[in-house]
């Protein structure tokens, strides 16, 4: 079976249109990050978080009333996966697990006769959250650095730069997308948790892998077609690898959709983030990474020509 016959699409020629699209995407994301904000999970915020199963179901409003009585009315309360299961979170800090005990007691007193099960309880001190934020940021920066160096060595420096910029683009758009989508889909919690950070780093890995495959083909074709202009060379390479790009991205996308549907509540944020990331990662290999290398090369060539004539 074969989905793609030999294609001859002019990817590179349309790059200016996509530059504008990318810029708009990044800007919308940034606007949302600034104005709507990012929902940090308990790991990064610090505080106490509980996942509680009720039987029979209770109303979120009633839970809030009950918690208000112990001074925790400002807690975040939302459904977690099933309707019978609620996530309760407060950034309130107390010694040890005092806050958790307070919530538990308030619930058992407030809903007598209800069969309440604590599925999970997390208490994170204020310093831990800050440490995690720093280490997550460091992880992304180091990953970018490592990629810049490795691709710069294996190809040319400008390729490394192109790959790094495209990954930066992916991380930014995905971050913005999470900020936009948060709260729009009921039952889907899109907060920045450890798992979502893992998704970002995996997304970096997958996106760069995709870029490398295309660069590899450009490198190979450069040796064969020595006189072909870089733009045509890139188009040729992109068309040759198109079938692989779509099959691989499609397969990973499918795996992520399965993880999103069947992987359980805990893996959902991961799968959702990655699924969007795969789309932008595949796109950016063509219109950010390759396009950057092309325009950078042209710019350098023009500059070199100018100095030569001068």
């Amino acid at each position, binding site marked *: *079976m074969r989905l793609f016959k030999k294609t001859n699409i002019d990817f590179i020629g349309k790059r200016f249109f996509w530059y504008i699209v990318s810029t708009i995407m990044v800007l919308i994301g940034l606007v949302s990050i600034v104005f709507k904000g990012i929902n940090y999970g308990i790991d990064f915020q610090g505080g106490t978080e509980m*996942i509680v199963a009720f039987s029979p179901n209770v109303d979120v409003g009633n839970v809030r009333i009950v918690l208000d009585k112990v001074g925790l009315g400002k807690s975040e309360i939302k459904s977690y996966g099933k309707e019978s299961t609620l996530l309760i979170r407060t950034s309130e800090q107390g*010694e*040890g*697990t005092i806050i*958790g005990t307070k919530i538990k007691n308030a619930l058992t007193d407030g809903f007598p006769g209800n069969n309440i099960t*604590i*599925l*999970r*309880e*997390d*208490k*994170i*001190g204020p*310093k*831990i959250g*800050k440490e*995690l934020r720093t*280490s997550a940021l*460091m*992880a992304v920066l*180091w*990953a970018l650095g*490592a*990629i810049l160096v*490795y*691709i710069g060595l*294996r190809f040319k420096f400008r390729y490394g730069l192109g790959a790094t910029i495209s990954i930066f683009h992916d991380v930014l758009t995905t971050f913005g997308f999470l900020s936009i989508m948060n709260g729009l889909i009921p039952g889907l919690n899109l907060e920045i948790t*450890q*798992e979502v*950070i*893992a998704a970002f*780093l*995996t997304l*970096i*890995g*997958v996106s*760069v*892998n*995709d870029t*490398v*495959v295309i660069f*590899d*083909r450009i490198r*190979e074709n450069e040796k064969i077609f020595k006189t072909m202009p870089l733009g045509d060379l890139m188009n040729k390479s992109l068309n040759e690898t198109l079938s*692989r790009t779509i*099959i*691989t991205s499609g*397969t*990973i996308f*499918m*795996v*992520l959709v*399965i*993880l999103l549907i*069947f*992987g*359980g509540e*805990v*893996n959902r944020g991961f799968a959702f983030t990655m699924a969007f990331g795969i789309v932008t990662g595949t796109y950016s290999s063509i219109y950010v990474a390759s396009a950057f290398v092309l325009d950078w090369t042209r710019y350098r060539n023009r500059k070199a020509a100018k100095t030569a004539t001068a």
Partner: protein
Amino acid sequence: MRNQLTRIIITVCFVVLAVYFLWPTIQDYNYRKQLSKLSGQDSIAYAEKNHDDMLNAKLKRMKLGLDLQGGMRVVLEVDVIQLLDDMAKNKDDNFRAIIKEVRNETASNDFSIIPFFVKKFQDRSIRLSRYYGSMRDDDDKVTKTLEDESGKAVDRASEIVRNRIDQYGVSEPTIQKQGGRRVIVELPGVKDENEVRSLLQGTAMLEFRMLKDPQVSYKVMESIDKFLTGKLETDTISSSTASTEKGKEPAKRKDALTELTGGAAAVAETDTTKEAQFAREHPFFMYVKPDQRGSGEGYIAEKDKERVVRLLNRPEVQQIIPSDFEFLWSAKVQTFQNGQKFYLLYAVKKTSELTGNVVTNAQASVDPEDNRPIVNMEMNSEGARDWARITGANIGKRVAIIMDKGIFSAPVVQAKITGGRSRITGMDSPNEARLLEIVLKAGALPAPVSIIEQRSIGPSLGEDSIHAGLTAIFISFILIVLFMVVYYHSAGAVADFALFFNILFILGVMASFGATLTLPGIAGIVLTIGMAVDANVLVDERVREELETGKTLRAAIDTGYHRAFTAIFDGHVTSFLTGIVLYQFGSSGVQGFALTLMIGLVANLFSAIVITHVIMNIMMDKGYHPKFG
């Protein structure tokens, strides 16, 4: 062709190794399945028959993370400010004000505390030696001592916690130090938070107690043995269910039951070997070997400890034990020269002679005369007075050093010790001496800790997660396998075959590392499946292209593999680099993900490039031409 043979041999070796490492996990699964089918007496008999094998499989199986099996994770941090406060002498208002200031100002930032603390004193030009060390010490020296002590406090805290958890009896706990100030404790299957909290915080109880006379303790052991003869089989169940409740939850009940019912009791009647007869006649001495030199303690093999604890806890046995008598265990497992591991059971007096808060200092060092490790211990004047009386009255007898009911050492009193300075000898290694130093200091200088992170996951959420994760893996696997065959025909089938080995390798490597499978880890495996397909797609697409240029099948395959290699390799290396970064900076959950990802990437390179190529070559040698769709 020789190259081909090497590749086949390597592949077979890897497969055998993977299966070898996974074998205990498979066995453990089978035992559980068998056990869940049986009930009552049958299950006890089954558990008894396979006790050692089951224990072995359980120890070596792949561990599941807390997120998958439920349990508690606690991060403790040594409260350095509290420690500085505890260590200081001649505290005045100035000192208290500084302590308060430091506490307020460091609450919301990450300054390291000791330099900050020292600076406060220097700002007010107060010499540190007013509060610490001796008058002549300059600030640098005091600072160094304080830094040292805060490092040691972490050791002490983790040792105290480890000791208590061992005494409490949680199966497979993890206790590790992190950085300079933290201790991470993971307790699978534990649910009672309050109990664990008090277990982890609170001051350690250090005490000195006299050992019972060896002959008396032997007699007591003998009467326990005599009493238990022939009485075991009927009560095993009731006594075990009574003690099952402690710290284990209902979901883990079956598991606990197998451990507990693996008792000394139900030796099969048909067994007529000498050992079985001995076990029937001496149910206690079967597991407790009294010291041959008559020093009074009993040796118990590591795997038998739980059985003996159970025997001793039986109410009837408790009645036999004299009222001023208590059996206590050695805190650490000891190792014989032949590598056998065992615990020691001591009979001690029920009342303590002296508690550890009289100990002012302890220092591990080396005897200058014979280079043996020793520990020097100092006591305050009040303690020294009692100590002189106790040692004077008990020359030639043994005194046990006990922390939280675990015996760390039981030296013989050589002479009456006046002046409060004692020297403890007879340690086998410098490590043993250091441990004793830590323990002795625990009484005088507590290691104040605070819980800065606590997570507990109920077992039902864990089960749901496993189920969801496995479902996701299973469905993706099936869909990918189908897709590859439909799209690439027999080449796709070969890739599928390699995918199967890939997963086998990942699990095998994880089992051999003793790595823990967590939920993010499962996500890593799912992702690896996706990446594995990519490598195969790259190769197969390339072979198709080469075929289109008119090459023969064999030439196209060889060139295809050759040309696709650089892309696959570079892609995998960059992903691997991000894996390393993740592992370095991530928290434990993310690390689990990074680990499976890295293992998966290496396994991918091998299975997608080596194994599939070998299979295709073999196919062609046999005259079968793989189709690429």
